[in-house]
């Protein structure tokens, strides 16, 4: 569904991403991991259209999207969340999600119906009239996901959505995503540091380090890959 | 167009521009550090002009001498204004801060109208009409004195920021608000200090302006806009830029008044502002944010 083909990005001479290539098959859940500063969010931002790669292509469902604006990328079917959540603080929870729903629904009433359905899936429907600013962090994260889901994406980009959650909350989120993947066929690409979630969710893991892909494959293999161990834990030294 | 006329107008423009520069310097300091859009800047200068007029009327005090107590007074008032009124607004959305200063400006302009009436006021001093003649070139005495005063005040401010510990602390706040807090700087106090300094600059500029301009309450808003034009053209966050911008605007105003119609000279300034905002918002010397 998504093919990232040798994308690179430099910021004022610092190479953030260097010729990265990976694929996200339809219906899969793929995790993008790597140490801090590896270039994961930069990749996301390129896919989401925040900025264009210096070189390379991004192909989504047979179309090249590397030069598209963020709103065009969303219309094409890619939804995203932000690492630092960006709720519409002055609006209610329901209104937040309705903004997302209005992309595909023509009227406010059908958008409301869609929004309520999404809130129910994310277990937020009881708080639908709360102002978004009144939510706790876990709820804000769920709101962020709900809003993106309301745009009926075919591919969902999740940027460290588990950060700051307690283990029980993490498990809840994992369940929600598993469910969406299983029943609705939602393809998911997620950046994660929380290995608990990565191991539970991902069918494929891609590892980024200093802007380069150093490993890719099933979770169990990747986690044992020497290059991966080295980048997280450092080189083995003889004692 | 006789050459000596052009030269004289140019010189007058540059000299006036230095006073504009001092006024804009005050705004640049305030805007650059505290990040508050001081929409009452021109009004503050107008009040300074009235202060100079009043001191002259009461004590025959030369505006150059009056600049000292007026600047001191403005420093205190500026400090209090920032500490008392504006500080809580640092964290509020931009348009809130903007409107706060608009409200202050409205009160100031009309306060002056009530206190001094709508008629123009000025000072009459012996040397106001004198000038030095170097060949065909005329140098107006008040303009030269004013420009020198403006230069001296600017230099003092520069040295303060460059050399003194407080000055460096203020620059630190401007660079990184959170960082300044983290290292234990009393940011609120430093902001108030900065506003006070900016106000003092404006005060000196006002005392200079009264030498070649009559003051009316409505002067305020046009000088606020002028100060912003200068700061934006010269570059936000650059003190040198404010001075350079001031001279540039003073010069272009003078020349525009000469070659185009005098009443159209401010049109030129607004046109320049529009162009700068669109194509080079960081101004001539500012840092790209």
């Amino acid at each position, binding site marked *: 569904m998504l093919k990232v083909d040798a994308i690179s990005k430099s910021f004022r001479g610092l190479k953030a991403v260097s010729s990265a290539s990976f694929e996200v098959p339809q219906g899969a859940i793929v995790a993008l991991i790597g140490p801090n500063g590896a270039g994961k969010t930069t990749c996301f931002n390129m896919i989401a259209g925040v900025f264009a790669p210096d070189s390379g292509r991004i192909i989504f469902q047979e179309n090249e999207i590397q030069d598209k*604006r*963020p*709103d065009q990328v*969303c219309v094409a079917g890619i*939804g995203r969340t*932000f690492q630092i959540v*960006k*709720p*519409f*603080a*002055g*609006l209610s929870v329901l*209104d937040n999600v*309705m*903004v*997302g729903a*209005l*992309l595909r629904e023509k009227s*406010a009433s059908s958008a409301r119906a869609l929004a309520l359905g999404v809130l129910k899936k994310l277990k937020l429907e009881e708080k639908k*009239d709360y102002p978004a600013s009144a939510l706790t962090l876990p709820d804000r994260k769920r709101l962020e996901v709900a*809003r*993106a889901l*309301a*745009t009926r994406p075919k591919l969902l980009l999740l940027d460290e959505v588990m950060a700051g959650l307690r283990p029980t909350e993490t498990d809840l989120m994992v369940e929600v995503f598993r469910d969406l993947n299983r029943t609705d066929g939602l393809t998911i690409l997620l950046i994660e540091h929380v290995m608990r979630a990565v191991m539970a969710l991902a069918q494929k893991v891609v590892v980024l380090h200093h802007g380069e892909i150093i490993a890719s494959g099933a979770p169990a293999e990747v986690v044992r890959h020497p290059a991966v161990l080295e980048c997280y834990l450092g080189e083995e030294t003889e004692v | 167009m006789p050459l000596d006329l052009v030269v004289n107008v140019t010189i007058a423009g540059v000299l006036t521009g230095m006073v504009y520069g001092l006024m804009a310097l005050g705004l640049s300091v305030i805007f650059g550090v505290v990040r508050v*859009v001081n929409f009452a800047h021109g009004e503050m200068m107008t009040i300074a002009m009235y202060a100079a007029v009043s001191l002259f009327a009461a004590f025959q005090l030369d505006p150059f001498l009056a600049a000292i107590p007026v600047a001191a007074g403005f420093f205190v008032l500026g400090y209090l204004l920032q500490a008392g*009124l504006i500080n809580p607004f640092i964290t*509020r959305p*931009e*348009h*809130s801060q*903007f*409107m*706060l200063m*608009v*409200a*202050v400006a*409205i*009160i100031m*302009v*009309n*306060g002056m*109208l*009530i206190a001094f009436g*709508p008629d123009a006021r000025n000072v009459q001093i012996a040397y106001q009409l004198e000038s030095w003649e170097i060949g065909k070139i005329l140098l107006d005495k008040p303009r030269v004195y004013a420009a020198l005063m403006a230069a001296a005040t600017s230099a003092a401010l520069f040295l303060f920021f460059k050399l003194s510990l407080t000055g460096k602390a203020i620059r630190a706040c401007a660079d990184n608000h959170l960082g300044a807090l983290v290292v234990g700087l009393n940011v609120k106090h430093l902001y108030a200090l900065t506003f006070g300094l900016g106000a003092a600059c404006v005060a000196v500029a006002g005392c200079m302006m009264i030498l070649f301009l009559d003051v009316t*309450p409505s002067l305020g*808003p046009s000088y606020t*806009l002028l100060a*912003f*034009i200068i700061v*934006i053209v010269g570059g936000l966050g650059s003190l040198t830029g404010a001075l350079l911008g001031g001279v540039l605007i003073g010069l272009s105003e003078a020349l525009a008044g000469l070659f185009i119609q005098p*009443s*159209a000279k*401010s*049109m030129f300034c*607004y046109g320049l502002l*529009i162009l700068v*905002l*669109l*194509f080079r*918002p960081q101004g001539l010397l500012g840092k790209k944010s």
Partner: protein
Amino acid sequence: MKQKVLLLVLFAVLLIFPKVVNPYLLSVGTLILYLAYTGQAWNVMMGFAGQLSLGHSLYVGVGAYAAAAIFVHYGIGPWAGVWLAIAVCVAIGAAIGFLAFRFGISGVYFALLTIAFAEFTRIGFDHLNWTGGSGGLFLKVAQRDQIDLANFRGPPEMYYYSILILVFAALVLCNYLLKSKAGYYWQAIRENEEAAQALGINTFRWKMLAVVISSAMTAVSGVFFAFYYNNLFPEQIFHISRSIEIILAPIIGGVGTLFGPILGAVVLTVLSDSITELLAYFGWEIPGIKQVFYGIVLLLVIMFLPHGIWPPLARKLGLAK
């Protein structure tokens, strides 16, 4: 339900207002409604799309001059003139919006840009002879006791009812807009533009829409101004104090709300006129006191009621959601 009842009561009061008051109060009422309408038009750009325009006098002035000029020079009545006014103002608004949004100008810089355009136009009109230059443009004041609707001339009541209709039309329009896709998208853009883009919103297009609607509505306000006051001076109509006047009512009443501008206009005019009357009663005729009062009210509202008077009032009356 409560909201609809209150609205009907308000409408009824406003309908009979001219019948029960003296001519001076009628003119005050007309002014309040004029400020309310113009404030509502400005509100669309600021309250809905979050763009602070401090140069709205530009649209009032251009709209007024456009309709007035063709009336004076060609005898074309205001019902046709208003379309020209709207067309010109929309073009200008679109140009400013385009320049600003394409070049990423927002916040304070956008506000300064709007001021610069208004000031530029003010001085420009001072030198425009076709519209009378700085000497002003004058419309023939026809008989005040006959209603000449085609040329929009008539007794003061006619003007009052016209602006009343405009205010209610604006209310209906804004209510519709707020509840529609546009309303949601504008609020999203205002709250967090980046997040809005990630949800598929073409923020440039929607911001332009707000600017276009706002300038079109303000153009109509200008046409009303021209045919009500019958004289136009660039120094007055384009002046920055006009722009500030326009925004006082919505800010005091409540930016982004439906009733904010109207409430603000009422509060501001009623209170300030009362103060002036009170002071005059004591023999204190002080020019400028009214504006000082405006400034103080604005200051207090910004400090203590940053969202305006309407939100807390609505809550007290049990009208908020």
